[in-house]
């Protein structure tokens, strides 16, 4: 992790010039590596430029660690090439699956946290870390379904992944809030049991009510400002994690760069408050 990383932003194409020129202390950027797994061209050159000015995080969406299959070797090779090229401070993936029997569903799909799933995912993370030559961090997913067949609760599952692979954790507080709401559990109970000592990055994002079901089902939509409830969780978590880098994610209804920088300033203020309270 880069010592100077404070609060970062997801890099949006429409903000590229401002992102390159921005000089705010602690600013860093995150991208999905899949969007840069190309042979050449201006998009890759732009990423080189951003990486030359700011710390960078590669946040994968398609490694499919929870599939009952080993990670795609070609994908790992492409990811390794990109890592060697831009030298990111952080590399992360999701606790989910998306690639199955030669096809890719562009989503982060759930699974029963069984003993067999744990063994498979431990092996997949180990293979990934070996191929990449570094530890990765794993993000907690958003949940929309009640699944049977769990042998572990999610926090315990993450603890086992950390213990068995040495991976880090990416704590997405919006996902914690959305999942807790949808599954009817208390987010503070989740956070109390979460293995905070392994966290390398925090994610903050907005959510939205389901267009058909309304507020009974929240969607991890990334198309709105960070919600007050998520800011509250952030303030609480910051008491335990005063220096871990945080990220503002925004993928839909993308506002001007200045608006995201204002949200970033909010995160910095809450982080400072937590430090002073500690």
């Amino acid at each position: 992790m880069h010592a100077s990383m404070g609060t970062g932003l997801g890099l949006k194409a429409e903000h590229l010039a401002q992102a390159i020129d921005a000089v705010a202390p602690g600013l860093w950027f995150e991208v999905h590596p899949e969007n840069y797994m190309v042979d050449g061209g201006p998009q890759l050159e732009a990423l080189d430029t951003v990486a030359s000015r700011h710390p960078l995080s590669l946040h994968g969406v398609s490694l499919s660690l929870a599939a009952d299959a080993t990670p795609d070797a070609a994908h790992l090779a492409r990811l390794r090439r990109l890592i060697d090229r831009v030298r990111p401070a952080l590399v992360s993936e999701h606790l989910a699956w998306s690639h199955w029997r030669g096809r890719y569903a562009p989503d982060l799909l759930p699974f029963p946290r069984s003993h067999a799933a744990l063994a498979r995912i431990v092996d997949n993370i180990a293979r990934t870390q070996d191929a990449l030559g570094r530890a990765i961090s794993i993000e907690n997913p958003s949940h929309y379904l009640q699944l049977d067949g769990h042998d572990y609760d999610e926090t315990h599952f993450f603890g086992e992944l950390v213990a068995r692979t040495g991976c880090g954790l990416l704590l997405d507080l919006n996902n914690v809030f959305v999942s807790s709401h949808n599954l009817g559990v208390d987010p503070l109970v989740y956070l109390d049991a979460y293995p905070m000592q392994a966290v390398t990055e925090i994610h903050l994002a907005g959510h939205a009510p389901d267009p058909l079901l309304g507020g009974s089902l929240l969607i991890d939509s990334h198309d709105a400002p960070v919600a007050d409830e998520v800011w509250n969780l952030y303030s609480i978590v910051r008491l335990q994690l005063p220096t871990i880098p945080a990220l503002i994610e925004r993928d839909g209804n993308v506002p001007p760069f200045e608006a995201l920088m204002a949200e970033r300033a909010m995160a910095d203020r809450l982080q400072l408050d937590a430090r002073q309270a500690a």
Partner: protein
Amino acid sequence: MTHTLADFQDGFVQAMRGEDGPLRAIASQPGFAVYRNTWMKACINTIEANFPAVACLVGHEWMRSAAAAFALEHMPMDGRLTNYGEAFPDFLATSVATTELAYLGEVARLDWLFLACGNAADASTLHAGQLAACSTSGLASTSLRPHPTARWHASPLPARTIWEASRSGRAVTGDLAWMPEATLMLRIDGQVRVHAIGDSSCALLDACHAGLALGAALDLAMSAGDATRMDADLLHLVAIGAFADASPSLTKDTP
């Protein structure tokens, strides 16, 4: 619940595709629609983004309907969604719904080539001076390699004219000549440049891409077009940067 992880994943994919299967209880939960909608929406959004000229021609609703039908038949192969849609031009060309819009598949092909050109590997270009340094016999036995960004297509329709108008948001004028058009795209200084070329130039690029020596490639290309223009066509292709710097190959093949 006694599913193995693989069984669960087979059943989940089945349910996402709207098929009955062992996970029907899970699929009946209200939240399941989130997964079903998300992957489909991502596929549709990607096709719409990767084929902007087609989207402009057919409009938002038609495009999303065609993209949804395509996604059900052709799920992405991996997470690189800039690579998703290679089969979409053929899908459009053979779709019953587009028999009255026969040019859509050809326009889609140019959208696809534009995308591929923009993301292709960087390489320096071959300059005319490098060819001039070769003897005539050496030149004939030299292999020229199309530049990695070069993408070309000979359409039986005026696809480029329609595509360019659509990309720039213009209506195609009523005096459109319904003639074949061949197109070459090259990325120069980060910008994709679009060139009108002849059938013989297309044939020459095909032959060079297949690894034929320049002499054989020119012979083949002459049979495809105006033989008297072949030297000029070759020089034009070199001048616009259609070939990669082939210095090692020239050195190797030149006596």
